[in-house]
């Protein structure tokens, strides 16, 4: 008990220095947590993606559409159990900063392929019956205060003009990692309106086909079979699992993700240097006390333990505080960026990494001062001022 008292009181001996170091630690651990959560959010789409669904797109680029006639041929491929399609709309809701993805979908089959989007039967039926109807995710509804029955106007970018929809349903995610920041409406509505408005985009086309397969283990084989159907045609395809498709998007911004990861670890390195400096100053100031303890019969290991314990205590207080503050900070952050990250949650792994890194910082920062103080000769230590 006395030793613990000594540890705690030593920690607050130089209050200013300890508080500043603690503040630095809290900020560093908090920053690490937020940056890790951003990286996690980047990969969230891929994490929530399925290996039992294939995405078939134009082999040249995702920008180019595929003719709808491909659907019947794909359906014939052995191993394919269901097919649907979706088209990126790219509209603006009120202002560009309110970004969320919108897709024109083949509604019935698409909703069947995505059971993770939870929609009540009543809302599903209402959506299916209304050609101008739309389904939005819970996050969009909450962010923009939308309710079932509300009208929404999107300003098209890919498809120019104003596009009106009525919210017929609000879906929830089956898991916390399910993206609830998307909007879906009928592909038929887009196709007919595009014809009616004589838009320059080709009609009877889609951006991607979503292909359900019975056996995920056969994904590669089935993908090859689909692409073989359209080889040397005007619309060659590229098929891959939904997960690989999503990871492809992440790969486009991999340099940014890598930079964020590097910065998150640099922050930890900086606080490590600050902590090491604090512990070095602390142990140097107490050289004579450590020498006294050794003279009284305490072992070098005890002295090293005092320094390491103090450093660990500081690190754990800072680490746990930083980790706890990450939750409200992440909530505030996601509130300010809207639906840019559909899934933005502080994961258990992030929290564990924060506390683990704090402990590691505490241990490393204490290593040199602890060894030096443990080794100091008593007579030299007693002379230290």
């Amino acid at each position, binding site marked *: 008990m*006395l030793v613990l008292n000594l540890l705690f009181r030593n920690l607050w*001996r130089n209050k200013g220095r300890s508080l500043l170091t603690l503040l630095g630690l809290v900020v560093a651990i908090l920053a690490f947590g937020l940056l890790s959560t951003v990286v996690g959010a980047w990969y969230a789409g891929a994490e929530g993606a399925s290996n039992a669904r294939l995405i078939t797109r134009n082999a040249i680029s995702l920008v180019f559409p595929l003719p709808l006639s491909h659907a019947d041929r794909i359906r014939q491929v052995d191993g394919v159990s269901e097919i649907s399609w979706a088209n990126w709309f790219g509209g603006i809701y009120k202002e560009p900063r309110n970004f969320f993805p919108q897709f024109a979908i083949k509604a019935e089959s698409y909703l069947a392929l995505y059971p993770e989007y939870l929609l009540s039967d009543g809302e599903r039926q209402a959506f299916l019956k209304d050609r101008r109807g739309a389904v939005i995710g819970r996050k969009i509804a909450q962010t923009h205060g939308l309710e079932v029955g509300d009208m929404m106007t999107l300003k098209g970018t890919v498809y120019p003009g104003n596009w009106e929809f009525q919210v017929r349903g609000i879906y929830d995610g089956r898991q916390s990692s399910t993206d609830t920041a998307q909007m879906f409406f009928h592909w038929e509505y887009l196709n007919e309106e595009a014809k009616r408005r004589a838009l320059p985009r080709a009609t009877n086309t889609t951006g991607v086909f979503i292909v359900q397969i019975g056996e995920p283990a056969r994904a590669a084989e089935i993908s090859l079979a689909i692409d073989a159907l359209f080889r040397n045609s005007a619309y060659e395809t590229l098929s891959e699992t939904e997960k690989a498709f999503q990871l492809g998007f992440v790969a486009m911004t991999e340099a940014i993700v890598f930079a964020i990861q590097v910065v998150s670890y640099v922050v930890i390195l900086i606080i490590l240097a600050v902590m090491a400096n604090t512990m070095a100053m602390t142990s140097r100031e107490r050289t004579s006390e450590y020498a006294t303890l050794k003279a009284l019969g305490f072992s070098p290991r005890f002295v090293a333990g005092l320094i390491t314990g103090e450093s660990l205590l500081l690190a754990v207080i800072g680490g746990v505080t930083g980790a706890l503050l990450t939750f409200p900070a992440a909530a505030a952050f996601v509130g300010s960026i809207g639906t840019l990250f559909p899934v933005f949650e502080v994961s258990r792994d992030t929290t564990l990494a924060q506390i683990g890194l704090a402990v590691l910082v505490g241990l490393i920062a204490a290593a040199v001062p602890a060894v030096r103080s443990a080794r100091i000769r008593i007579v030299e230590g007693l002379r230290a001022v």
Partner: protein
Amino acid sequence: MIELRHVSKSYRRGDQRVPVLQDLSLKVRSGEFLALMGPSGSGKSTLLNLIAGIDRPDTGEIIIDGRDITRLTESELASWRSTNVGFIFQFYNLIPVLTAFENVALPLQLISLSEADRKVRVTRALEMVGLLDRMDHTPGELSGGQQQRVAIARALITDPQLIVADEPTGDLDRQSAQDILSMMSRLNRDMGKTILMVTHDPKAAEHAKATVHLEKGQLERDAEHSA
């Protein structure tokens, strides 16, 4: 009984070795109160440190109660110090964040003792030095003389036979110094503690039963002392 046989000690200063003690032999009987005097650099503190087991000689033997402490490992020596030696330093060397009670109790962490026994021992030691009413005060809240009395209580808490004091009154006013020296005399007289005290002050040395003078690392007079 403390016996030093042909003890030499030197320190390295740059490339040179500076001899501090040269072939020194000395016997101190149990229950002695011996003052070590001499000019600065004469080696008296080094001699005290060697006997207290916080420094090691280059050559020679230091036999205390039949045990050559120069042959002990670092951990054996630390364990030996914890039960056999009490330290009184010039600047008290108390832990500033601990109360008087906790400072005195500190050496008891190395001994297996119940919490109740620990409390009794510390209370008794503080009572002996007249500081029971200040047990909850930290060193910063005590005068120099009071701090040195806490240090004496700490030196006594494990009931060691040997007390080493390096200039114990060097930082105190005359009255406080007198109180500390009287207390040390009582420890020697009433409790039979062997006390070795380094001092510059001839008046302080008068409290000792015998005095040894060191000059350039060697004893100036007979090395045999008896109580």
